[in-house]
């Protein structure tokens, strides 16, 4: 119960931080915001690494490895594509 209260506290506080930070993003950057936050949601990779590295049964290894691959696509692709997009936004020279 104590850990649960701890993690739920973290969760709720993080939501508030998220809303606070994201409400400052101007509409012009909404697409990069989506793809960038999308890349962050690839954090599931951390969970995937844990389950792929547990070596419990063949099934968990298989599922974990597959999850690692999918989450890595999300992370690598997400950050790269966001970078590509953002580097196009320029000021008048």
């Amino acid at each position, binding site marked *: 119960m104590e850990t649960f209260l701890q993690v739920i506290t973290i969760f709720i506080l993080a939501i508030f931080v998220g809303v606070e930070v994201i409400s400052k993003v101007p509409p012009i950057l909404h697409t990069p915001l989506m793809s960038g*936050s999308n890349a962050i949601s690839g954090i*599931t990779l*951390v969970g995937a690494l844990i389950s*792929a590295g547990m070596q419990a049964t063949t099934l968990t290894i298989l599922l974990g*490895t597959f999850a690692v691959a999918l989450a890595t696509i999300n992370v690598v692709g997400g950050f790269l*594509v966001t970078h590509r997009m*953002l580097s196009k936004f320029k000021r008048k020279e």
Partner: protein
Amino acid sequence: MVGIQVAYVLASVLFILGLKGLSHPRTAVRGNLIGAIGMLIAVGATLLDRNIISFEYILIGTLVGSVIGALFALKVKMTAMPQMVALFNGFGGAASVLVAGAVLSESLVRGGDVGMQFLIATAASGLIGAVTFWGSLVAFGKLQGLITEKPVRYRGEQVVKVLVFLIALYGAFKTIQGRGNVEWYWVASGVGSVLGILLTIPIGGADMPIVIALLNAYSGMAAAATGFVLNNSILIISGALVGASGVFLTKIMCDAMNRSLPNVLFGGVGSVVETIKADDLYGGKVKATTPEEVAMILKMARRVVFVPGYGMAVARAQTPVRILTEAMEKDGIEVEFGIHPVAGRMPGHMNVLLAEENIPYDKLKEMDAINDTFAQTDVVIVIGANDVVNPLARESSGTPISGMPILNVDKARTVVVIKRSLAPGFAGIPNPLFAAENTLMLFDDAKKAMEDLVKAYREAA
């Protein structure tokens, strides 16, 4: 054990700073890099943790994923960005399903006590992750043109959706009974997959920005749920950040369409009876023009505003738009762009397309900023937009778009609308703007019309 927690805190801080960087185009590139470094730290710390005893499969998984992800990201055209974002989003959701499934079966093999939090979070990861994955795939299919962009509606649709949702919940309930049931977990995820398809397939093209934002929120929630499975702080924090971002964008998109989220998800557009007859509205009042005539008007203008819509993206007319912009600016004409929040197929879509054409971002104005300037604007060129410039929206009721905030282009001295025909937009209603006293219609494909216009402008003295 302490080391990894410190690393996770550091990564969380970097994620927040990274998102903060996105508050201005000047700092955005750096913000994204900071986020990527945060990810690197989180992943690195996890790999160093002693719980991980085997690396060969991890290596295979990350290699394959990195290559595929990088290829996608570097090859994709900017115009295909909405479907790319949808696809990546889906992969994150799928990963959550697999991780929670793997952890559940591992815990059943190992035995020992499992708490209620673990079981509920596992079921939630499976359900939300499956909805995210399949919903994103359908969105991808629609945006890529593999599935019809039209809303797919059928009799009893709402009943079917509610039933499938209840079955999914039942599956989740069976998953968490006792010490957990992995078979029921996969059933629940399977039903969640069906639900993901059912929720996305009825949604039409113009509502796509809302759906993409919503799926973004789901992917965050799925990651947070997986965090509750593993009691892992970094997953919970990142998931909450992304979830908040997705919900926030969804709300902005809904407000910009003056529609509630349930209305988008469960239908609404098209159900309003059409009260205005297009023939009565347009009959004898629509004035067609030529590129030459428009070029003459532009030559005399001091301020011109482009209002782009999805039609510009489809016709790939951005390049001639940029060429004409540069030509006009050389003649001392002030040129800006008025961008509606829901123009295009995802939040911010038009900005990305125009930025790729090297149009400086300080010319891309949001709706509230540009609306006051239309009265002092000589010419507005509406290119591939329709509902977002329909003055009927200002009327309080009677149309599907009533109350929707629009770009008040009709206040400008002259409005040039580039459009193939008088066909209605997504809302299915005629647009009085096309018949207005100060409106000229340039009937053609957006790209062809713009190229002709560039030519005519150069030839006009």
